[in-house]
């Protein structure tokens, strides 16, 4: 088995003298030791870093939305940071309707065993758009799609920003937004009507059909229906 991959150990950049990680105890609500990357970010990006705080032991770094891609790229590439692992991309909408929507990235640096929470605030009166980090982390693909599906945040630069958990023709909006009622926006009668009106034969979206150029081979009536825009994944 000599031709296998070389094993990568987390904490490799810390050296052998570094203490082994231990379970955190008595974590304080506010305050505590800041992640060293926060100070480095301030020095590197200055004004782009709006605010730094430590909540329950994890450092929150608020980044101006337009600089997110630069900041993440630097965190990923710089040899003193090496945030190579993207745990999560999600968003938070507060019950206060005036408060901006926050996009949250949970980053990990495996070589340094650090974790960092990046946040960008998107005001609600502007289009909800933010740069995609897909070009840096391939793992962001589905996470960003889910965030778009649930909150309607457009990740600019994402190669394939489609709905993922809801179906393509879903018209009720973005389920995790606070203005979306728990029971759904449409009445049960309307939901039932739409479900019955759906055409179960149109199993493929245009995107899938185009990859195989199979469109021409379809039965005439199905082609007609698809051309009529019945199921094109609009």
């Amino acid at each position, binding site marked *: *088995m000599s*031709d*296998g*991959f*070389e*094993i*990568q*150990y*987390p904490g490799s950049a810390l050296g052998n003298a570094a203490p082994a*990680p*231990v*379970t955190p*105890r*008595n*974590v*304080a*609500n*506010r305050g505590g030791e800041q992640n060293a990357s926060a100070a480095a970010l301030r020095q590197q990006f200055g004004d782009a870093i709006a605010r730094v705080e430590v*909540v*329950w032991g*994890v450092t*929150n770094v608020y980044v101006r939305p337009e600089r997110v891609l630069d900041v993440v790229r630097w965190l990923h590439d710089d040899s003193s940071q090496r945030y*190579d*692992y*993207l*745990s*999560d991309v*999600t968003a*938070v909408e*507060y*019950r*206060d309707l005036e408060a901006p929507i926050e996009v*949250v990235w*949970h980053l990990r640096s*495996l070589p340094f*065993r650090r974790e960092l*929470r990046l946040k960008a605030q998107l005001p609600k009166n502007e289009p909800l758009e933010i740069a995609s980090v897909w070009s840096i*982390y*391939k*793992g*962001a*693909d*589905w*996470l960003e799609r*889910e965030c778009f599906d649930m909150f309607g945040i457009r990740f600019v630069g994402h190669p394939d920003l489609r*709905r*993922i*958990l809801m*179906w393509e023709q879903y018209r009720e909006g973005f*389920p*995790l937004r606070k203005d*979306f009622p*728990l029971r759904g926006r449409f009445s049960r009668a309307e939901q039932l009507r739409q479900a019955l009106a759906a055409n179960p034969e149109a*199993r*493929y979206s245009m*995107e*899938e*059909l185009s*990859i*195989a150029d199979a469109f021409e081979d379809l039965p005439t009536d199905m082609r007609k229906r698809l051309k009529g825009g019945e199921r094109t994944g609009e």
Partner: protein
Amino acid sequence: MATQKRTVEVALSTTGVDAQGRPQRVPLVTADDGSPIAVEAPPMVEPDLAGEHMLINIGPQHPATHGVLRLVLELDGETVVRCIPHIGYLHCGFEKLGEYRQYNQILPLTDREDYLNAMGNNVGCAMSAERLFGIEITERCKVLRVIACELSRIASHLVWLGTTCIDIGAFTPFLWAFQQREYIYDLIESWVGARLTPTITRVGGLAADIPDGWMTKLQKFTTDFPATVEEIDKMLTKNGIWVGRTIGLGVMTPDEAINWGLSGPMLRASGVAYDVRKDFPYYDYETYDFDVPVGTNGDVYDRYLVRMEEMRQSVRIIEQAAKRLPDGPINVDDPRVILPNKSKATSEMESMIHHFKLVMEGPRPPLGEAYVAMESPKGEKGYYMVSDGTSKPVRWRIRPPSFVNLAAIPKMVEGHLLSDVIAINASIDIVMGEIDR
């Protein structure tokens, strides 16, 4: 592909399979005296399809997709050119539901997302709620939670093992695995009364302490169980068919695996020794003596080896935890979250008001947010809770490991044969309840 050069010694030679695990051509026709008649090999000329591709749909209702996963595959002959996964058929909106529930009411939702690892999810969710409240749970609770986590890790890996065996064509290990899994569910049932959806934790403690004699039953399990692992190991690890159908498939290099955000056995099989229990420990996992198995080839076979070894290591952890289990309360002494004693609640005014307030209004954590990661059988499972000071979270988010692992399936299956898609898909260990939530 470098890894395909690797050879695994095949001890068990099965009829119809040569040493490399390739099926031998066995003549199906015999002469009258029973001797085989030589069958002429079919001409090896393949028709020129001139790049004509075929579109194949697998699922959502298909036993080998482990739930309601739908894969649309574009095939060139039998080779997968492109794969488009479709998910969402089991979307229940747990995250939305969580925003309308108190912290203890969220816990039953976690049973139902990754239903193979229900106890582990309860622990993870309670852990993030406790971080929000700033609660340090008692020592006894910690050790019992570790036992719960490791038991459900074994149960989850056993289901993975059994179903993967069926996908690849072996039925016997499935029965052995499910027999042991049944024993684990008996243990859970005698602890909290439920089997699949135990909701074993409460914020600040546990639903119940273990009953009398439970540790003896647990000990019986930890002594009996390794024999089953060894049996399955003997059956599969050097089996020609198993090796032939798993080796060199779905390879992810360490850098790719990290970049795609893989975690758990998927990541470790690719040679990255990242385990949340070791690198960002919780519940004193750093004081337990256990090893993190790491593969070096990143293929389906290594994922199988990693999971087999993880089951053995989990048994080690359970044995150590059983030895150190201290006496004492299981619930933290914190009136913000823990209900008063029942007899007090029915006899004292203050306790009754306290009980009423906790049940009707629910505990209120301070402003803040907590992302707590734990090592679930599938990988890094994170629970992210944001509180605005009310009794219900503003946002409750599950970081689903198999969702992120499944996102890499197009990369893993492209270039492989259609039949290998099933093996690769099985190796991800997906649970659609967790992916769709």
